[in-house]
Each structure stands twice: as structure tokens, then as C-alpha cells.
């Protein structure tokens, strides 16, 4: 580590390739520059390295240093100079989600058991799951075949049958694949990779059926027992095949693979690595979200267990129409602190859908987009909570107490009370005109409970730091904490039931103290980088993290939004009366310092 002075890392996204430079100065590693350029995977370039060289070229312009060897000028032609490569750095690393990322079909026997485990394996490996085939997916064979033919996945993950369980269903699925004869999305003439990670007793039969029709890779059963998953080997196989097959077929990647000091990682996998590292290093449960124009990715680590989900049709430009369809106008309107008629709202959202690259110029438009973001984030977390769950189908020994708590197997792992840190990313959060707006959007959408820190990844460098973490985790963590996360502050939300206006919390933070009443949102300034000792005494029946009515003491961190006290209750219910709702929303937004033109 002592010898590493300079690192360049790129993230080749669907539309933009982003390059960052990390340098060691005074024995500390810092972000020293950032450049970006359009991704060039598609025609007329058909070569990812053109975009990489242009992004790194921008780094050169900004820093005055040379990182590109054997190149006379910035690449603007349709083919990159074959002699060019990244040089003058100790490490060059890259992630990629260009060309639609890694698209997978997963199969299992029962939808909520082995098929769900296979989904978790694929998503955790950074894939986009484009369909899930299971015995109980309510489709006829011919419908499944037509679907498999139409989607052209990059690879297939087959699971199903615990050890000693069904064999027949695995053979059925194998024959279904033969009948569908799927072809990979990239690379004509090469065989589709199929990872078999199901019941070992069915291996021989599956090999016989699939034979030399596909490139079959056998891995240990990913759900050997109902009570246990073994996702690691399947995830590693996915990663290996992503590099060997998918990346090798994508335009220009053969060249890029020879430039990098470590294997290229898929972007979501790299973000997942960073989220897991952050949770380990900081010893807290973490929720991270990346909300884009077309999709919303949610990552979480609860109790040391990592999960990732992709809501493929929740986004703020291309997918804004789907947020409208899924959430409904009433749910979006409830967050807008100014009067907007439903008809007008629908037309505005549709106009954004058909011209997705436009940006809000008026305050009303901004408030509407931030309202849509709240609903997209809320739905994204709902989807995540359904998949980030305990194993379904597990029989549990129950005590009398369980009968009253209704605890069940397969419940969600998402626990908003134990959650210690929320990280937001994506244009609407990272580039909100005011940081307080990002904080309030995340609080409203996720409804954190107890004491939770909030942050945004200002320039979305978690992918590059994630791939760096695979080589040098200490440097990745150092830069992550120093330059990647922008702290927004801490939210304190007591959970319990009270009538509007009743005191729900008495607090002391540093030298300040006060009370929080039900229905209130309050803010205490605490600057970025600052910390303060806090003593929180919830009212009887209220919990702020130490149990009902029990005092919580600890350290809270500051940020652009400071410390936000949220007494609005969980679940957060907005006034049903239109005028009262507008009055309350306006009050909360102004208190949070989130109203454009208002005090910050």
C-alpha cells in the first residue's frame, strides 16, 4: 500500500463513462480529479475504450498530468488508437454497466423458495434479473418458451430442489430451455452460459438434456436445505462468466481487459462491495439507494446480511410514467407542498416521460419531481423489503409468545430501527439544489426510525471505490469517508402513538435542549464534520432506539441538514384535508430549509 501513489478508476455506465483520480498526499489518499465523457459502446463507435480515453483525457486536462500513453490527441475518431493505454499510474481499475449491464434469467422450482434464492444470488452478483421461471409462476410451458426466446439473456442461473428433493422439475426446466433454444444477447455463434446450481441428484439428467446445447457450468446447490442458502459459489461463477463471456463479447472490452490491473467488475456488484465494506467498518446496518432515470437500485446490509434489488421500472425520466402508474396520482400529489390540480400533474409527468432529458426550471416543477422521487424511493424500498427477507418455507418451532407476535419465517430483514446509515445517490438526490431537500426526500420516503445518519454520494464514485476495495480496501474506505460521502446530518424519529401536539421526546444535544411534539418536524444546526453528544428521552410508549420509554445516549453527526427531529409518527400519515395537508407540508419543508427561495 505504501508504494501506491496514484490510482485511476473508471465506471463505464450506460450513458456516461466517469473517471476518477486518487492520489496520495501527506500520507493520505484523496480524490484528486474527475472527468467524464459519453460511453461509446454503441454505434458509431462500438468501442468502450474510446469513452474511457476521453474521460481520462478530461482528467488530464483538469490535472495537467499525462495518463494516456502513445496517443497524440484526444480521441474523437470512430476507433481508439490501438497503441493507447492508461499509464503513469500505479493502478488502473474499471467497472461497467454499459450495454444494458449483465442481464440474467433465473429458474427455480418454487417461486418464493429456490427461485427467490437464485434471484438473490444473481442480484447480489450485480445482474439485472429479466425474468424468473418457476413451476408455480402461473404460465403455460409455451408461454415460458416464448418469453425465454424473446428476452435473450446474457446467462441463465438454474436452481431448484433442495438436496434429496425434486429431480423431475429440474429435468422439466432443462427440457424447457432446449425447446426455447435461447441465444445470448451478445456474440453471434457462441453458446449461452447456463449455471446449474440445483439439486445435485439432478445434475446428470440436466447434463444429459442440455448436453452440448449450452455452455453448462455446474456449481454447488445454492439452496441445499430449506433452512440454508449457499449463494457464494453461484455468485462467483456469475462474476467469472461475466468477465469471460459477456465482457469479452462487448465492443472494445477485450482491449480494456488488458489495460486494467484487476478484473473489471459489474457496476452494481462494485457498489455492493462498497456498501458491505462500509457496514463492516462502521459496524452499522446500511441502506443505499441509487435512483436513476430508468431504474432504482437498493442495497442493504442488515445484521451482516447483504441484499440488493433492482426496480427496473422505477425512475425519474424514462420510467416516470411507471411511477405514476404504480403509485397513482394521489400518492404523488400528497407530497407536493403547493396546490397542483390532478389533470395538470398528469400532463406534466407525461411531458417529462416523452422528453426525459429536460430539467425543472420552475419551483413547482422541482417540487413535483421531488414528490415523484419520494414515491419511487418508497416503492423501491417496498420491493427491496420483499426480497431482502429470511428464507421462506422454513419450518419454525413456535412458542406461545410467537402466536401473539405473529412472527413468521421469511419476514423482511429490513429493520428501520436498527438502520444506522442511509446513503442516497442519483441525480435527484446528489444534485438537489439544496442538500436539505435530499435529506427530506429520504426521510419522507424511507421513514427511518430512531437515530439514523443520512448521506449522499455526491459524484457517484461508489462503483470505482468498490472495485478498488477488491484490491486495496483500506484506501477505498479512506477515500469513501473523506471524499465520497457528503454527510447530510442525523434524523431522530421516535416511534409510538400520540395525539397531535403531545410531547413525544425530550432531547439534549451538546449544550442545546428541547422538546419534540407529535406532528412536528424540527431542525437543529450542526455543521458538517461536527459531532455532539446526545441524550434522548422518549415519552412513555415511544421508542428512539433503546426500547419503549428508555433513554438513548450516544453521538450524533452533523451535515448540511443538521439534526432533524421527526415527530410526525410512523407510519407517516399526512392530513386528509387538502388545506391542512398543504399547510403542514409547507411548514415541514420550510423548517427543513428545503424550500427554494426560503431560508436555508
Amino acid at each position, binding site marked *: 500500500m505504501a508504494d501506491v501513489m496514484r490510482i485511476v478508476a473508471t465506471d463505464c455506465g*450506460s450513458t456516461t463513462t466517469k473517471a476518477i483520480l486518487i492520489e496520495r498526499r501527506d500520507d493520505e489518499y484523496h480524490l484528486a480529479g474527475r472527468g*467524464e465523457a459519453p460511453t461509446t459502446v454503441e454505434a458509431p463507435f462500438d468501442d468502450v475504450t474510446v469513452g474511457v480515453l476521453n474521460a481520462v483525457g478530461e482528467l488530464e486536462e483538469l490535472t495537467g498530468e499525462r495518463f494516456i500513453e502513445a496517443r497524440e490527441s484526444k480521441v474523437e475518431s470512430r476507433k481508439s488508437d490501438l497503441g493507447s493505454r492508461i499509464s503513469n499510474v500505479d493502478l488502473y481499475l474499471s467497472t461497467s454497466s454499459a450495454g444494458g449491464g449483465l442481464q440474467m434469467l433465473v429458474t427455480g422450482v418454487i417461486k418464493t423458495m429456490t427461485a427467490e434464492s437464485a434471484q438473490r444470488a444473481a442480484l447480489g452478483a450485480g445482474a439485472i434479473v429479466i425474468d424468473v421461471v418457476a413451476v408455480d409462476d402461473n404460465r403455460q410451458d409455451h408461454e415460458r418458451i416464448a418469453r425465454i426466446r424473446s428476452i435473450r439473456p446474457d446467462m441463465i442461473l438454474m436452481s431448484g430442489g433442495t438436496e434429496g428433493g425434486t429431480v423431475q422439475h429440474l429435468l422439466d426446466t432443462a427440457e424447457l430451455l432446449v425447446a426455447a433454444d435461447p441465444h445470448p444477447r451478445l456474440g453471434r455463434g457462441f453458446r449461452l452460459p447456463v449455471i446449474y446450481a440445483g439439486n445435485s441428484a439432478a445434475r446428470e439428467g440436466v447434463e444429459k438434456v442440455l448436453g452440448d446445447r449450452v455452455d453448462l457450468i455446474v456449481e454447488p446447490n445454492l439452496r441445499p436445505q430449506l433452512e440454508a442458502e449457499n449463494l457464494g459459489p453461484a455468485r462467483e461463477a456469475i462474476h467469472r462468466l461475466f468477465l469471460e463471456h459477456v465482457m469479452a463479447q462487448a465492443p472494445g472490452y477485450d482491449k480494456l481487459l488488458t489495460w486494467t490491473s484487476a478484473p473489471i467488475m459489474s457496476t452494481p456488484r462494485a457498489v455492493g462491495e462498497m456498501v458491505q465494506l462500509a457496514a463492516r467498518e462502521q459496524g452499522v446496518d446500511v441502506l443505499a439507494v441509487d435512483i436513476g432515470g430508468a431504474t432504482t437500485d437498493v442495497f442493504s446490509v442488515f445484521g451482516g446480511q447483504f441484499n440488493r434489488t433492482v426496480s427496473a421500472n422505477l425512475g425519474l425520466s*424514462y420510467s416516470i410514467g411507471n411511477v405514476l*402508474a*404504480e403509485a397513482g396520482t394521489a400518492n404523488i400529489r400528497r407530497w407536493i407542498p403547493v396546490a397542483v390540480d390532478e389533470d395538470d400533474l398528469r400532463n406534466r409527468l407525461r411531458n417529462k416521460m*416523452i*422528453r426525459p432529458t429536460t430539467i425543472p426550471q420552475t419551483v*413547482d416543477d422541482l417540487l413535483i419531481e421531488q414528490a415523484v422521487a419520494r414515491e419511487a424511493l418508497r416503492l423501491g424500498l417496498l420491493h427491496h423489503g420483499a426480497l431482502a427477507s429470511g428464507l421462506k418455507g422454513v419450518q419454525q418451532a413456535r412458542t406461545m409468545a410467537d402466536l401473539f407476535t405473529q412472527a413468521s419465517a421469511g419476514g423482511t430483514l429490513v429493520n428501520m430501527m436498527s438502520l444506522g446509515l442511509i446513503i442516497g445517490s442519483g441525480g435527484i438526490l446528489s444534485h438537489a439544489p439544496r442538500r436539505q431537500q435530499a435529506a427530506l426526500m429520504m426521510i419522507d420516503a424511507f421513514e427511518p426510525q430512531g437515530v439514523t445518519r443520512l448521506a449522499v454520494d455526491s459524484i457517484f464514485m461508489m462503483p470505482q471505490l468498490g472495485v478498488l476495495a477488491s484490491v486495496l480496501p483500506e484506501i477505498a474506505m479512506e477515500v469513501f469517508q473523506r471524499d465520497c460521502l457528503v454527510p447530510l446530518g442525523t434524523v431522530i424519529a421516535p416511534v409510538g402513538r400520540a395525539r397531535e401536539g403531545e410531547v413525544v421526546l425530550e432531547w439534549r444535544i451538546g449544550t442545546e435542549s428541547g422538546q419534540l411534539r407529535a406532528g412536528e418536524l424540527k431542525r437543529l444546526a450542526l455543521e458538517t464534520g461536527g459531532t455532539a453528544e446526545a441524550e434522548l428521552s422518549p415519552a412513555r410508549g415511544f421508542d428512539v432506539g433503546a426500547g419503549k420509554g428508555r433513554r438513548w445516549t450516544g453521538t450524533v453527526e452533523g451535515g448540511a441538514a443538521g439534526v432533524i427531529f421527526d415527530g410526525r409518527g410512523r407510519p407517516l400519515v399526512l392530513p386528509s384535508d387538502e388545506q391542512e395537508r398543504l399547510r403542514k407540508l409547507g411548514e415541514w419543508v420550510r423548517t427543513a430549509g428545503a424550500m*427554494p427561495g426560503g431560508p436555508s
Partner: protein
Amino acid sequence: MAVAYTPGLRVTADALIRQVRRLPMKGQVLVSAEQTVAADQVIARAEMPGNLQTLRAAQMLHIEPQELTAAVLKGPGEAVQAGDVIAETKGLFGLFKQEVRASVSGTLEDVSAVSGHVRIREKPRLVEVLAHFAGNVAEVIEGEGAVIEARAALVQGIFGVGGERRGVLRVVADGADQMVQASRLGDCRGCVLVAGGGADAQAIAAAAGAGATGLVVGAVRDEALRDYLGYDIGIAITGQEEVPMALILTEGFGELAMAHRTWELLTSLEGKLASINGATQIRAGVIRPEVIVTREGAAAGGAPKEPEQVLEVGSRVRVIRAPHFGKLGRVTAMPVELAEIETESKVRVAMVQLDALGQEPFDCAQGKQAPAERLVRVPRANLEIMQE
């Protein structure tokens, strides 16, 4: 990013249109190179394999999968009728016989000794590809289709629903900002209707009910679209809707007049055969809905003019976001520095001289000073380049 632009939609009286017309699978091409084709002419045909139905035969017969081959009465490739016995066990002294009957008519495709399943392929379905617009066959794609080429007027819309349709253009509004007049509809069979300002839900239903194959309007309210489809569109990938009439919007949602140039072109083509397609895809590889009217007697040749893509001082633009949504103008300056807008965001902007109603557009080339009230600052992302 060095270049910020939003390519405009094409509206032109004369373009060279080339479209690849391809079967979804290998089939038979019915035209030859340089042949003249009519819009509704079938140019390629294929038989789409029927659905594959699975029968769990071994399970139904209570035998092991490897015993199935001996129990099957018909071989792969043989025709079967629904109800035919296709497999049976001998039973004991002719008693307790088990049998499996075909669930559908078709061809026995596969008998698996591994899974114990029998698969029957249903009868194939005929798929045909039409030329869609009158023109010449520029190229034959062996076994797949052809490239059709023609000189034509082309109007690209911003959003549409419904797939390919053809019909005679008929104008049913009095101006670019006027709504469809239901009283002017009458019998619309075989017509593509044009109205400037838009149509409400009743007018859309009336047009479809009167037999129109298409309706091209400036804008509709989203509620009217939902009423027409019966559901809310989620993702902007359209063209497969089961609607009687394709609907194309040239400007967007709400109450917006059709752009003057689009209106002028479409009204000048009244009475001519139009080939329209409502299919829209707003993702990478964007597809916009379109109206094509082949020019009679014009020979194909010459490359079409590509839309202007770089925003610069002097560009004709349309503002595509509030507060000046729908207004036209010309770029007079492109400040390099980021500028703070009303939302407090700092973004790249352009100074735009808006056209005043009834006045000539400001001509920046002649260096005329613009009246201050018509000079507005607009984020560059909110501008669409107009072709001149």
C-alpha cells in the same frame, strides 16, 4: 460534456425514406429488387411455429420415464388430433389400461425418456409483412424481408399508441390550435384524421367508432389517453396496444397547438394515402411515431438531410419545459458559465429570443436588438432544435 443538444423531430415535405421490413423469423420473400410495391402489398410471409404443449405422459401412465418410449403410439413428426390416444400401457390381461390423449391438434414433436414428457406442437400461424408505404424494393434480405425506399413527406410525432395503419388524410379541425369537431367526423372509414389543437376523450372515441384508422393531433390530456386505452401507460414503449385506431401526438400532453409547420404540411397533403405508425420507444435506440406520405412520381435517390444536432447561437429552437413550454425562438447567446435558475440549481443555459405572435422571428444574423420581455434564459436541456 462538451455538447448539449436535443435533436428535434423531423417534419419535411421531401425525404428519402428507407425502412427495413423484416419477418420475425425466416420465411419467404415475395418481392424482388427494384420492384415497385404498393403500401398494402405483402412482401414476405412465414409460418410461425405453433405453441408447444407439454403432457406429463409417464406420470399419467404411472410408469418410469425410460419406459415411455415403448408406451408411445406415434413417433416424432406425426400429426395428431385433439383427443387421439398417443400413449398407453398394456395393463394386466387387458384390464387397468392407462392412456394419454392429445390435448390439442398438431404434430408430435418430442418424447423424452429423461423427463417422461410428450410435447405436441400446435398448427403454425401465418405471419405476413406488408410494404407499409408505396415505394421501390431497394434490397432483398434473403429469407427475411426487404428494404423499401421512397421519396415521401415525413412527420415525426413525439408520442403515439397503436401500430402500423394506413388511410387517406382528412383534416377535421379549422386550425393548428383548434380541437377535433365531432360534427365533422361523419363516416371515417379508411381515414387518418388530422386535428391541430387536440381531441378530448369523446372525440377520440367517436373517431375510432366512425372507423378512422388513425388520428394525428398536437396534444391530448393524459386523462383522455387513459380513457382511450383503458389503463395508464407505464413505460413509454408502445405500438402493441389493441386499439382500433393509432393515435399520434406531435407536441405532447395537455392543451398545445400543433406546430405551424407540421399543420401546414399535413393539411397540404389532405386526400393522399398516409402510412402511419404510433410505435414509440423512449429509451436508448429511440423510436418516434411517424406519418409517411409517398410523393407520387418522385424517383428515389439522394440522401435525406440529417437533423441538425448541435445547439449554437442562431439555432431555431422550441422550449420543451415550463414556464415557456411550446414557445419557439432563436438562440442569441450561449453563456459558458453555469447560471442559477429559479429552482436554485446551477445549470448551463441559453438565451432565447422568443417569437412574438404575429411578428417575424427575431433574426440574430442581422444583429437586431431583442425587446427585453421576449428574451428569456432557458436551461439548454429544455430546448429542442427545430429544423429550418
